[in-house]
């Protein structure tokens, strides 16, 4: 699955230049700046996991940096722990807190995540400033320097090397956490938040894990800073640290660990360059930060990706998706109200395995609402839903998907940054299964293309492939034929027939009658949330109520 990323060479060149500049300056001041670059880079690499990969603006990363620093300082000064195990404590305490914070916070939507995490950071600052056990406003001083096997790494080159080993560790951890199928799943959760649960992806687990990892990484940075300075004060918990990390992450490019390192090397020494301006240097620094974000709105890594595109992973050979066949979908008395409007009113039907059931009705008759209720995206309202012998109406959408219920969307959310293969593998049990699904929808030759380059018809094919890759026994499709050419419709029809013949149950919502009527074994017609007709295509099409409610108008238009 790995392809050689030529951007690595660009970063290597940057690292070489940075090292040359450092060796040329060579004094303790230059080494100290380079050490600070490493310390902030570590915390920023961690921040990329939540901010970049989860897409959550968690403004608690700066606080976790500070908590790591405090944990190390208190462990070494108050408990007499030596610095090296102290660093472990500096990682574990914030990691644990990060996981705890993630449980409630990860349920929130974007801007509320920002304020909730900012509030937590403010609380940490208030406690550190006011609690005497934490040293109050003066903080904790007398933190011993880092010693490894009796060698003192307090300053200069030894400390620099120790810190940059930490950078390498953070990069490796971040890379591991976001590589391959897991990376594709994270991107899907971030860029396709509605589709992801329907594909069996549960955000909570990922969010808790990533929060913990990010917080632990921040703690490592903070612990190293405490060792480097010898004191820890509430200054490490102030919003300034968070601003630095956020600026590094954004200027580095969303999600990119190496980009964060490059941005740290750019932004951390920046104020030092303007020291000559005395109190005006932060004005110039602000100006430089503004210029950086205006000139590089997608960050260093984003700009680099334009010049040297990220190579798509090389897909494996094709395998098979083992379907769970022979399970029927049954709904009974499904109902849903929006305010005073009744969207579904006691809808009951069955979709047997091996059959295609068409769901028709005018706009607003409740078709998509029914799909949302069945797939679990909408969990409000009454009625029972059964997948075979399992009652599913209390289960999360991700659980339903894992039981074999898959869904295609009318307007599929496709993560733009992924290749076609990656979009599908995010939902598949294996790379081979993903290739099998792509093969069925005729996209296998385009597996390495960027998903963003697909046309509308191919996007729907990709959405269907993604749904198939989960190995479903029941497939819900929302207007799969909309916008397709006659030829594409024919291909879709025969694919759907094959899928049913193999033993799947298909529920298809569709407006286009000349597509649906020949395809479906049975048709259900909804009007104002009620089933007004059910039967074979011919009987339903001939039903006068259906003709009045729906078909008549369709024929006229």
């Amino acid at each position, binding site marked *: 699955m790995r392809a050689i990323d030529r951007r690595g060479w660009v970063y290597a060149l940057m690292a070489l230049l940075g090292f040359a500049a450092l060796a040329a300056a060579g004094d303790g001041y230059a080494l100290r700046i380079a050490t600070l670059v490493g310390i902030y880079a570590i915390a920023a690499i961690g921040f990329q996991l939540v*901010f970049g990969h989860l897409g959550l*603006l968690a403004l608690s990363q700066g606080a976790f940096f500070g908590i790591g620093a405090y944990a190390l300082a208190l462990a070494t000064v108050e408990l007499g722990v030596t610095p090296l195990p102290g660093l472990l404590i500096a990682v574990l305490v914030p990691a644990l807190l990060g996981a705890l914070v993630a449980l*409630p916070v990860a*349920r*929130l*939507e974007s*801007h*509320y995540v*920002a*304020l*909730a995490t*900012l*509030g*937590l950071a*403010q*609380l940490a600052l*208030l406690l550190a400033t*006011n609690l005497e056990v934490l040293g109050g406003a003066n903080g904790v001083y007398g933190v011993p320097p880092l010693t490894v096997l009796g060698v003192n790494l307090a300053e200069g080159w030894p400390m620099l090397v120790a810190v940059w080993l930490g950078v390498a560790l953070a990069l490796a951890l971040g890379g591991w956490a976001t590589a391959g199928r897991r990376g594709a799943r994270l991107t899907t959760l971030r860029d396709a938040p*509605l589709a992801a649960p329907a594909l069996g992806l549960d955000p909570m687990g990922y969010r808790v894990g990533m929060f913990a990892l990010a917080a632990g990484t921040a703690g490592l940075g903070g612990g190293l800073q405490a060792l480097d300075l010898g004191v820890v004060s509430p200054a490490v918990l102030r*919003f300034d640290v968070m*601003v630095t990390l*956020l*600026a590094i992450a*954004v*200027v580095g490019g*969303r999600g990119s660990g190496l980009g964060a390192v490059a941005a740290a090397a750019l932004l951390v020494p920046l104020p030092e360059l303007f020291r000559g301006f*005395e*109190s*005006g240097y*932060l*004005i110039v*620094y*602000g*100006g430089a*930060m*503004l210029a950086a*974000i*205006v000139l590089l*709105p*997608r960050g260093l890594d984003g700009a680099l990706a334009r010049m040297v595109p990220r190579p798509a992973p090389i897909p494996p050979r094709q395998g098979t998706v083992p379907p769970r066949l022979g399970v029927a979908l049954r709904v009974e008395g499904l109902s849903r109200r929006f305010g005073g409007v009744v969207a579904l009113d006691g809808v009951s039907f069955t979709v047997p395995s091996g059959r295609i059931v068409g769901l028709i009705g005018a706009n607003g008759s409740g078709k998509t609402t029914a799909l*949302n209720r069945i797939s679990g*995206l*909408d969990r409000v309202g009454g009625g029972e839903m059964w997948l075979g012998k399992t009652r599913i109406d209390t289960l999360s959408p991700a659980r339903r998907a894992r039981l074999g219920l898959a869904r295609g969307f009318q307007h599929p959310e496709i993560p733009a940054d992924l290749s076609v293969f990656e979009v599908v593998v995010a939902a598949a049990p294996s790379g081979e299964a993903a290739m099998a699904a792509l093969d069925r929808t005729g996209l296998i030759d385009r597996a390495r293309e960027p998903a963003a380059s697909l046309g509308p018809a191919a996007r729907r094919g990709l959405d269907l492939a993604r749904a198939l890759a989960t190995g479903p026994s029941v497939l819900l499709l929302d207007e799969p034929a909309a916008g397709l050419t006659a030829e594409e419709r024919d291909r879709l029809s025969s694919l759907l027939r094959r899928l049913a013949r193999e033993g799947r149950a298909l529920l298809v919502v569709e407006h286009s009658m000349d597509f649906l009527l020949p395809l479906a074994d049975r048709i259900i017609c909804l009007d104002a949330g009620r089933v007004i007709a059910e039967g074979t295509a011919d009987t339903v099409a001939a039903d006068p109520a259906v003709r009045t409610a729906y078909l008549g108008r369709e024929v006229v238009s």
Partner: protein
Amino acid sequence: MIEAIPQLLVNALALGSTYALAALGFVLVINAVGAVNFAHGELVMLGGFVAVGLAATLPETAVLPGLIVLPGVMLALAAVGLVLALIGYAPLRRAPPVSVFISTIAIGLIIQHAVTAGIGPEPRVGPPLIGTGSVELFGAVIARQQLATIAVAGLLLVAVHALLKHTRFGRRLRAAAQDPVMARAIGIPVVLTTAASFAMAGALAGAAGLMLSNQYFVAPTDGAVLMLKAYVATVIGGWGRVWGAALGAFAIAAFETVVAASVSYLVAEVLLYVGVLALLMLRPRGLFGEAEGRRA
């Protein structure tokens, strides 16, 4: 036990009304561009310093010095708001919203440190709206400035309400906030409504800054706290709800005053953040709900 209840209430109301002006500007920008303006606190602070500077040009004997300079301060800060939109938002309107976070943080840094370097780090006192002195009300001594602050802020809030609710411009502004793509499609000049939102945010921040600078002085480092207050008020009030933000601001001021007067400042501050977190857990869309339902 507490004797000064009338004074405390008036103080909370005065403080709340200035917070409300600040929060109102904050939420107008959120609605216009969907991004948080992190320089908003700095705009309030700058408004205070502009008020100090303009008042210094008045003769010593001037009556109503604050009221005289108020239009000037609002105009100046409206211009600053426009400049902010021009350099902090316009180049980034197609970039991810979080870029605007960074650009406004950078502009906030520039404003704060330009004030420190250019004017000095000393706290300053702004002009009183209607001169000094106090009046007896309900047996309590109330500063006239407090009453004037409540009156002026109240008038400004009503004026903004009228502007948003009853003018064509206001309807366009709200339409553009709800759905910029649709607004553009039906011919609303989104560039203009965006610019107007930033200018109004600046003007309201200026008014808030003026009133705060007289009552509580103004120092270059004041921005961060004010920005946080506006942020919390916006969330309490429901993201994107203009009047929710104003109500949220009053709620914060009343809460802080009451708890600080009966227990302590530390408890008030801790409880405020704990309360906000609890609120987010229990009502993830704010106390008064969000401006519009998210579309699936």
